[in-house]
């Protein structure tokens, strides 16, 4: 499903990833961990196609990400749910609109968009705040909006960058239930975290990134 081969990523003189090789099977749940600055976020960005590698290849679902662009890249991104570390919510839209936009992009009928969005907001405990701006929410609530947006489209691959960083233990458990649910429906899940709690309480393969290497 996800194959990284001899992957290098540099930002100017700074090397973010050095000769990374990795394989994640279809339907697998994987944690990527490592200290801050190890390259976890960069790795997820490369897998999602939002960054291009300096060298090496990335195959995701048999698609060579070095070779796609334009509409094909847009369509590829629709199959991926991405929980960004900085949430990347749209401040000019409501919580409901922040989640529903991914379904609008997929050109689904409004009735489907409405029911799916309400359902997912209920799952993350934000149904009552659907009409609010994300700016009116706490950090933890914003993170849940970001998670809802990533999973509402039932992605083939779910990439989550520190998805529980701002959440308490109870909410962390609830989010992990959602992730397991997505996983059980057949999605491949890659979670970048340095949360010990998350790693200790879940029995999935863990890939450790250290000093830009696996």
């Amino acid at each position, binding site marked *: 499903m996800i194959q990284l081969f001899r992957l290098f990523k540099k930002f100017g003189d700074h090397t973010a990833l050095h000769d990374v090789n990795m394989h994640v099977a279809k339907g697998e749940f994987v944690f990527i961990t490592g200290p801050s600055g190890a390259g976890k976020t960069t790795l997820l960005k490369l897998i999602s196609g939002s960054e291009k590698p300096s060298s090496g290849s990335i195959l995701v679902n048999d698609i060579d990400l070095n070779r796609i662009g*334009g509409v094909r890249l847009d369509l590829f991104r629709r199959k991926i749910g*991405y929980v*960004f570390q900085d949430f*990347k919510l749209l401040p*000019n839209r409501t919580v409901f609109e922040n989640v529903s936009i991914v379904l609008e*992009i997929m050109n689904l009928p409004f009735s489907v968009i409405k029911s799916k969005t309400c359902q997912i907001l209920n799952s993350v405990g934000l149904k009552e705040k659907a009409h609010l701006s994300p700016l009116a929410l706490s950090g933890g609530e914003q993170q849940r909006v970001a998670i809802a947006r990533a999973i509402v489209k039932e992605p083939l691959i779910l990439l989550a960058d520190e998805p529980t960083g701002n959440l308490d233990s109870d909410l962390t458990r609830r989010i992990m239930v959602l992730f397991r649910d997505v996983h059980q429906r057949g999605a491949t899940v890659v979670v970048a975290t340095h949360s010990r709690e998350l790693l200790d309480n879940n029995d999935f393969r863990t890939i450790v990134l250290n000093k830009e290497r696996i």
Partner: protein
Amino acid sequence: MATGAHSHVIKQALSHIRKNRFVHGVAVGATIGAFVILGLFFLLFCNLNAWMKSWGNTFSMTVYLQDGISDFKRDKVDSFIRGLPGAEISEYISKKQALSDLKSALGQESVLLDRLSRNPLPASYEVIFEGEGEGHDFGKKIIEIEANLGKLDGVEEVQFNHEWLNRLDPLMKNMALAGFVIGGVVCSGVLFVIMNTIKLIIYARKEEIEIQKLIGATDWFVKKPFVFEGAVIGAAGGIGSLVVLFLCYIIFAAKKIHLFGIVTLDFVFLPMEYIFFLLIVSIALGVTGSFIATSRFVSN
């Protein structure tokens, strides 16, 4: 099927307009100003055309007959003239009457004419042509008739003063050319204003566009609200300019213009085809301007 994407376009565009009222207001104002200039020119053109039509509805012509024309030939000329569309013979002036008319016109000097051994003046027909709303084209038809009459057996000469008609044609052509030039300048100006307005809005929403691209939006999905917005600016500018032009028309229509103390000129407003043209051009410029602006900023 009502899809979320359609509602997204309208919602987003209206939200952009609501949140950037000042920028949009300036763009619509500039569009109105530009189209008022173009519209005033159209108004002038249409009114000139209407006045030309009303003046050009009646023409008179003198058909001189050859000396010694037989009655048969004269009857043929007579029936040819009567068969022409809109033609009416107002008077037949025989050779004798022509001489008598000349004598009365000369008064005491007419004794000079007594020395003539024969009457040199030709018999003639005074013909009046009346056209219904054909205006400038009617004038052109009359010139053709003049040529055909001149070739008729028994006709010596046809007199018809078409100098002013000859001048009218280049005037209208120059007006049309000026219309193209003014139209081109105005359209470029409107395109520039709308393009820059959309650019400003795109700059303000750069982050939002990036996020949309990251979650799988196609370029077209991102562009659509901006293009719709451009169309709204264009349409608002077009409608606004028509309102301003109509107000100008009401003010001027109340005043009658008198020429030589005899002819009264009535003002006309833009015909429907001009109104549609202005609206369609304004919307098309809005769409084109925003399309160009977004194409430069929205891509993978």
